[in-house]
């Protein structure tokens, strides 16, 4: 098989690294060779975070090249737009949480924020799926689970069986958060059906 390349984009604190890690571990369980790397700036929090995951029979580079990602997973609209060029324009998918986090430290950020990013990317002919992940997560009791809603949606695009995803979530999510996260994961899957 070909190597699968995934780009996870979000804001520090949103949990994009966690779902990238869960994806990597699921791919390991499914028997693939896997590499993962993250890039973030000097800030501990609030900055833009990108995590690259690649899996397949044999993976060399941990870095995803722009234009080759099977999926770009954006936990926030601006960050999805920032990394949208990583998607394979022909066959790839951009999954984006329909949610805006206005950068706090930029003057007039509210005014200059690109609110129409989803429409813009669609107009470029890209396959963009906007999902109400934050809204759904809040309805399930905790907005922070938006990342796992997106993970559920992503899982439908990857050659990893459902039971491995469930097993990985159970292994990695602390017991007291597990039930909510399994629901969030399931909600994400259903959004894609």
């Amino acid at each position, binding site marked *: 098989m070909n190597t699968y390349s995934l780009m996870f984009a979000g804001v520090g604190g949103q949990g994009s690294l966690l779902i990238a890690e869960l994806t990597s571990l699921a791919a*390991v369980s499914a028997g693939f060779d896997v590499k993962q*790397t993250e*890039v973030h700036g000097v800030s501990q929090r609030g900055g833009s975070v990108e995590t690259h995951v690649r899996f397949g029979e044999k993976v060399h*580079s*941990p*870095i995803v090249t*722009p234009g080759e990602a099977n999926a770009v997973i954006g936990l926030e609209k601006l960050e999805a737009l920032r990394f949208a*060029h990583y998607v394979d324009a022909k066959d790839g998918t951009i999954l984006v949480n329909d949610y805006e986090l206005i950068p706090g430290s*930029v003057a007039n950020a*509210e005014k200059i924020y690109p609110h129409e990013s989803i429409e813009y990317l669609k107009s470029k002919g890209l396959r963009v799926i906007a999902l109400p992940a934050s809204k759904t997560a809040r309805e399930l009791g905790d907005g922070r689970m938006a990342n796992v809603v997106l993970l559920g949606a992503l899982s439908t695009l990857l050659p990893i069986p459902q039971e491995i995803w469930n097993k990985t979530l159970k292994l990695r999510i602390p017991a007291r958060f597990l039930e909510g996260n399994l629901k969030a994961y399931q909600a994400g899957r259903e959004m894609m059906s």
Partner: protein
Amino acid sequence: MREFLLGNEAIARGAWEAGVKFVSGYPGTPSTEIIETLATRFPETNPRWSANEKVAFEEGMGAAIGGLRVLVTMKHVGLNVAADAFMVFPYAGTNGGFVVISADDPGMHSSQNEQDNRYLARVGKVPVLEPSDAQECHDFIIAGMELSEQFRTPVMLRTTTRLAHHKGLVEVGERKEVEQKEFVRDAKRFSVPIYRLARRPEVEKTLNALAEYAETCPFNRVEHSNPSTRFASGQASIGVVTSGIAYQYVKEVMPEAGVLRLGMTFPLPAKMLREFCSKYETVYVIEEGEAFIEEYMRNLGIVNVKGKELFGVIGEYSPGRLRKTLGLGDPPKPFTEEVNLIPRPPMLCVGCGHRTVFAALKQLKVTVSGDIGCYTMGALPPYEAEHTTFCMGASIGVAVGLEQAGHKDTVAIIGDSTFIHSGIPPLIDAVYNKSHLTLVILDNSATGMTGSQPNASSGKDVLGQEAPRLDLEAFCRATGVGSVEVVDTWQRKEIVNTLRRAIAYKGPSVVIARGPCQQLPEIKRRKVIPFAVEEELCTKCDACFKVWCPAITRTEQNYPVIAANECTSCTVCAQVCPTDAIKLAEAVA
């Protein structure tokens, strides 16, 4: 058994398996996770955070001549601090295995310069190993210990950011205990300055033996050299000499190319290189950083080499960059032409105690010489209250120099960890040379920027156990500083007043702005009663926005609102509110 490990975790695991019994280092991106992993998973390796890299290296050197296997970790610029010891150790040679990690940062993700430490190794005559994935990070540590003992030499393992900070599958093993070697008092070997002339030829002898070894070292290997391989960019048959993570990019982008993969990059295998290059019309040298291998090849008289003139010396390599250079395709660019991809610049954390200090420095309009830590962000908007930053500990010396150049309004700022690391000699010097230095120590009891590791001012060690806490104020007084004041870092007015007094003081003065780092686990765990805005009292004057706290945003009606789950209850916004509209959440109607 296979584990999915970060390059740095694989190094830690390898060190544990190799029977390492002493580990020292100073936090620095991208090396920090090595000691963190050892502390949490493999404490029997006896890890510690040292005061700085020179101290770490010297402690390691002592432990190694004392007969233990030793790992010392640092980022690339850390080796500059340790260089004094690093350069002289090969004259004595080691007893137990000794590997130093130099974590280089091409692309300067979290560093002030790009620096290829293979050159430092060449100056010091220390052999260099360069792994290319997480598995090799693990394997090369174990091999490095053996190499070190076989040739009685310190060994450098050079990683780069992408190697240290990527995860891959690693076949791991068990720990093998290694018997401690005997330490025999031997001044002729271990008192280098006295016996240097006798030691000098030994260094060359070892280096020659290592160069011989490089020819058969299993980490230097030729892979399916197929001279008929052709590329779109040119019609010549092409071979590639590569090292480190760049090897992975070569395999990705040019899977059919003949490759000489160098896992040991100093000393280099001259015969092997000559023979490989003789089989190809053109040889690309693809190495992250400087033209280290390439220059050596050119010096050997190999002429069919193309390297940095094509691939460049600046920044990180990537498969996309190689493809573009080789004419194999130009990856798409970000959508910046038609849309405004506004940045998310780095920010100080919610509740960070540095914020009030920068606000005060800005208000006082002084020249600020800064140092290395999260507080380098004080140079950025909205504060723009830091005017020089160079390297660890430089704030104090630079302030003393600026004073000599007539800029008497200069204030130096330094964090507690950086002060301990390299601020102490310059403070002693400032007092001795009668400076009127004003120094602010931002004391958050942690090495914040690298993830809030403990240091000598924390009261805790790397294992989380209690440790003696350095008394910073007593220490500063002992150097002869006449005015030492401690202030709560979240008290805005008090900070301004204390700074005014310190600047006016005739003689060296120190202000310690104290308050814990908000990323410390015990601070993150504590229960916080957040602040909230009582809209009826709020006049929308925006004073609270000028605190620049990321937890404060606007409602649709333009009132400030404080994110309850982010607020650390630092009180600074409440202090600036002229109408007392910001109160503890439970008091807001």
